[in-house]
């Protein structure tokens, strides 16, 4: 009889009776709860949930409204979070079908999709003018160099700067993704990430496309910046063997890729080896990792089912566990501080790219070339003033205009 009362008392006043979800099986048992009472909240797809995501709190308009210390007093961060508030990175070799997969995944999980970056983000200015048209007026060291140029001439001295810029764009886009997830609570799916960018740099170095000095600068820049970001929750690697990659490249039939000598066996093998032996090994310490043989494509639904089975909360009870540690902020204010950092201080983060290394000639340009570049670049259509203030490309109402965009390029 006493035993009955004791169990009842434990159930009524035990910690588990007030907390809705005991975190571990052990805790459930000590609280006298049957394990069936345990709640798990995993990522859920649209099909499983039976409809679109319904946000608890309307998203914060982070693209038009600043989020600073004062906003943080009134607008807290975690109230928008739910089980789908996760960062998923889709990784894989060239032409593996990442784009299609990532888009389907984002649609199914109701997440925001961030496409792969390319140099157009730099060379197409905010008014749609292609800055590559300026090349004839520029000295050789300042001319544009994008993926097409890389495919045609990978040993060009600008290849190193190209890869550093790709890293910079990925970093910038990842900051945007973090802004989105912290301001809206909606998860994000990115195609590749700043964390995996070194794979390309390393493969380029092994193939002799970039010098040892440039690699050292890249690593300095990476070391100076990468720690600012929150690592993803989940990395999905679409594994495609080298010969299939080469077939896919032919099948995709993009002119610059098909004609290029870059995607040799050696380069693609290097990519695969570095991806698997360095990147995946490293990121698996923080993120959940799913690897699929994607050589004949695959079903997104199958992947979604696998994702739904992952319990992302299982590491929460141990604060020293390295898994998901970037996403463990004990206090609400710390969430808000992180959100301020990504939403309001992006320019400070981008400033960390200013690593003073002057020992690698291909990453420098002479003062004369720089002057010519500056004169040409900032006199192109829509480049004279910051976006929104260029009368020559049709901006109006400038006499009384005060507004400047948030985190806009300038």
């Amino acid at each position, binding site marked *: 009889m006493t035993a009955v009362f004791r169990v009842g008392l434990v159930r009524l006043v035990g910690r588990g009776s007030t907390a809705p979800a005991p975190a571990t099986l052990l805790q459930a048992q000590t609280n006298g709860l049957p394990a069936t009472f345990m709640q798990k909240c995993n990522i859920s797809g649209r099909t499983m949930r039976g409809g679109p995501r319904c946000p608890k709190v309307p998203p914060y308009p982070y693209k038009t409204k600043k989020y600073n210390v004062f906003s943080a007093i009134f607008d807290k961060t975690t109230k928008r979070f739910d089980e789908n508030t996760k960062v998923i990175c889709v990784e894989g070799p060239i032409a593996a079908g990442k784009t299609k997969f990532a888009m389907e995944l984002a649609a199914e999980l109701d997440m925001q999709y961030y496409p792969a970056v390319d140099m157009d983000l730099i060379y197409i200015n905010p008014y749609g003018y292609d800055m590559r048209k300026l090349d004839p007026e520029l000295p050789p060291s300042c001319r544009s160099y994008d993926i097409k140029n890389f495919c045609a001439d990978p040993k060009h001295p600008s290849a190193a700067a190209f890869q550093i810029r790709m890293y910079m764009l990925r970093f910038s886009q990842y900051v945007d993704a973090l802004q989105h997830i912290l301001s809206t609570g909606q998860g994000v799916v990115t195609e590749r990430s700043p964390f995996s960018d070194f794979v390309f740099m390393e493969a380029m170095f092994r193939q002799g496309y970039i010098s040892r000095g440039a690699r050292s600068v890249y690593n300095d820049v990476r070391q100076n910046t990468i720690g600012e970001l929150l690592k993803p929750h989940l990395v999905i690697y679409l594994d495609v063997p080298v010969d299939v990659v080469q077939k896919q490249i032919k099948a995709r039939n993009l002119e610059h890729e098909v004609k290029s000598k870059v995607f040799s066996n050696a380069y693609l093998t290097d990519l695969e080896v570095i991806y698997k032996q360095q990147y995946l090994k490293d990121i698996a310490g923080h993120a959940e990792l799913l690897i699929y043989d994607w050589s004949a494509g695959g079903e997104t639904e199958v992947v979604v089912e696998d994702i739904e089975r992952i319990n992302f909360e299982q590491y929460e009870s141990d604060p020293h566990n390295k898994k998901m540690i970037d996403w463990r902020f004990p206090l609400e204010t710390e969430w808000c501080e992180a959100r301020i950092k990504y939403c309001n201080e992006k320019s400070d983060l981008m400033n960390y790219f200013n690593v003073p290394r002057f020992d690698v000639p291909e990453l420098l340009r002479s003062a004369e070339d720089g002057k010519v570049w500056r004169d040409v670049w900032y006199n192109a259509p829509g480049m004279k*003033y*910051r976006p929104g*203030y260029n*009368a020559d490309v049709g901006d109006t109402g400038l*006499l*009384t*205009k*005060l507004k*400047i965009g948030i985190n806009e390029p*300038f």
Partner: protein
Amino acid sequence: MGDPAVYDPLEILTNKGTRQPTFLSPIWNPMAGALAGFGAALFTNWGFRKPILSGIQKHILFTIIGGGVGYYLDNKRNEYLAKRDAVLRHYVELHPEDFPKTNRKKYADVLESWVPVR
């Protein structure tokens, strides 16, 4: 007005109302302040990569604030100088024995004639 040949310390510190301000002296400081305000607005626009005259309301506001600051500082300075003179005057009035009237000397009385010796 006393005898011009005599120095009277009290008289030197008295506003006799004979000095006319120049045209620029009352407006110089407010004008400089207004100009600095306008310049600050131009500089801000240049720093933000905007056309230097866009957002003209900001320029007007900065100019008014700059002019106001100049006017305020000008008044502050005048008050300071008036107070300083009043304090000195009061001191002289309290200690007349320390400030006797002296006869005015000319350089001719002070300097000796120059006799070159070679």
